[in-house]
């Protein structure tokens, strides 16, 4: 029972980090970023590359990886997405193409075998008779902190209110002197950094290989549908629901069935409440 509680919390936290970034860039810039999973993969590979190949210590390597992925996100938005923003289809196509290029680059440079990302914490902790890897607890703690910081940043700072304003009405925000293009870049960077942080933190206990971007994007999509496209509290709640639902199904039935949970949740949600739990915009 306690085992389900702890492991469910860890996977919920990772999902939340992925889904919050995904929903943020959609909510603010209306960009559905299919390359979001690639940021996660690049974060994990970056941590691997800087520690194993360049022999950097782990913390600077992790921060460097996250910073570079954020920069990559900004570049993708600037160069590839911005000229295409008029058509949502073109944005989807271009981000999917970017995701595939990233997968191929990872495959060609690192090969298809699994890579080991070193863990920050190697020790195992025993909580109430349950063994939990320290890295998992760290992932849980850091992601809760990061999401809380993001929330405070958006609610309490000037830049945060500018982001909120653009998400509500980019045109009106422009008239008020808010440079919405620059806001898009900043949000893309933030969202990429969050995904990369998830990759760095989850890398040690998940498989790191070139196709690792695919399932996270599917999960992020399911979470965002359930929580409501563009709603951050919605996606946090939905991440908790999906994380726990998967863990419970994994323990009670079999881990094979966990993949079905997200699909079922997505389909049911789209049939009965397409706007999601907290979605404000009607989907019809």
């Amino acid at each position: 029972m306690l085992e389900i509680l702890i492991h469910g919390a860890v996977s919920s936290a990772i999902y939340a980090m992925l889904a919050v970034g995904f929903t943020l860039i959609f909510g603010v810039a209306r960009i559905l970023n299919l390359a979001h999973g690639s940021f996660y993969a690049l974060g994990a590979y970056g941590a691997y590359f800087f520690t194993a190949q360049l022999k950097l210590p782990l913390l600077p390597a992790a921060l460097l990886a996250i910073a570079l992925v954020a920069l990559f996100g900004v570049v993708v938005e600037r160069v590839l997405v911005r000229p295409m923003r008029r058509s949502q289809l073109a944005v989807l196509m271009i981000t999917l193409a970017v995701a595939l290029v990233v997968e191929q680059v990872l495959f060609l440079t690192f090969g298809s075998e699994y890579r080991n990302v070193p863990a920050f914490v190697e020790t195992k902790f025993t909580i109430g008779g349950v063994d939990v890897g320290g890295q998992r607890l760290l992932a849980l703690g850091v992601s809760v902190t990061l999401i809380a910081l993001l929330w405070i940043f958006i609610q309490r700072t000037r830049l945060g209110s500018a982001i909120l304003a653009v998400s509500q009405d980019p045109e009106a925000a422009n008239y008020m002197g808010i440079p919405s293009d620059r806001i898009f870049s900043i949000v893309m960077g933030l969202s990429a950094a969050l995904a990369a942080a998830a990759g760095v933190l989850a890398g040690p206990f998940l498989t790191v290989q070139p196709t690792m971007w695919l399932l996270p994007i599917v999960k992020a999509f399911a979470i965002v549908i359930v929580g409501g496209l563009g709603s951050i509290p919605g996606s946090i709640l939905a991440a908790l629901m999906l994380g726990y639902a998967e863990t419970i199904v994994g323990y009670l039935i079999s881990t094979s069935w966990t993949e079905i949970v997200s699909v079922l949740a997505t389909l049911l949600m789209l049939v009965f409440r397409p706007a999601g739990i907290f979605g404000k915009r009607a989907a019809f």
Partner: protein
Amino acid sequence: MFGKRIDFAGALGFIAFMAALPLIFGGNYLIGVLTVSVIYGIWAVSWDFMSGLTGRENFGHSLFIGVGAYTAGFLNTTFGFSGWWSLPAAMVMAMVFALVIGVPTLRLKGPYFALAMLSGAVIMQRLMLIFWEQTGGEEGINGIEPLIRSQLGFYYFALAALVLVTALLLALARSHWGLILRAVRGDEATCQAAGINVTFYKIASLMISAAFAGAGGAIYAHYQLQVSPQLFAIVTSITIITMVYVGGMASIYGPVGGAILLVLLTELLRNFGEWRLMIYSCTLILILFFLPNGLIAPTWRRMKSMLAGRE
């Protein structure tokens, strides 16, 4: 008037060219490549019918292809159905999947359909691996009987299927039905206001598209004599989408040319095996930026107007 005659002559010329190629050059290798290119042609045309006309991009066409191929393979190896029976069964099965995904997602505005198709294909591929006892896992299903034993015969059958599918979808796209689909692409709200049941048309055209993708999948299964979960991969869908973009979206005939051109080109690039997908993705990005109308359909239109002008 002239335009139609030139179109017809162009189509006949193309069919004659494709039919003559293996006779002139011969060799089983070329026939194999051509057969694969023709099957990709069927997939690209079926994608274009739904997504090109309505503008609802389908990122999981591989779902229908895989479902068709697995249905055909399963019926053939487990129940001994011949290819002629598994082909329609594959079409029906793909249509059922189209209905299940289309009903919840296509009545909505927004990107739900594109994402649901992408997820659907990813999850189906996972399921094929997870339930390996039933599906054969990574190996897939082996020992499927060929539809037609002679290689050349099979090629002509696939070519005939491509011509049939293309003609059918072209006729549909140029009919009242196609007009509605194009209108949906332009402005859905206006269509609804005009009393058109937009959702019905979208779901029905997805089912038509899925049926032919499934048929193509079944033909592919009976050609390769095995199916593997790789068929469901995103790579399959993105390859098809690239072919449609190269051919010219919403032209129906363009994607056929795009498919054949790209399959033949990748055969030339075989030495770059590992780079293949990379080349596809980069081609797609370049086309999106520099040739948003594609390559083949606009070229044909220009040629046509030149010919018509001279007469």
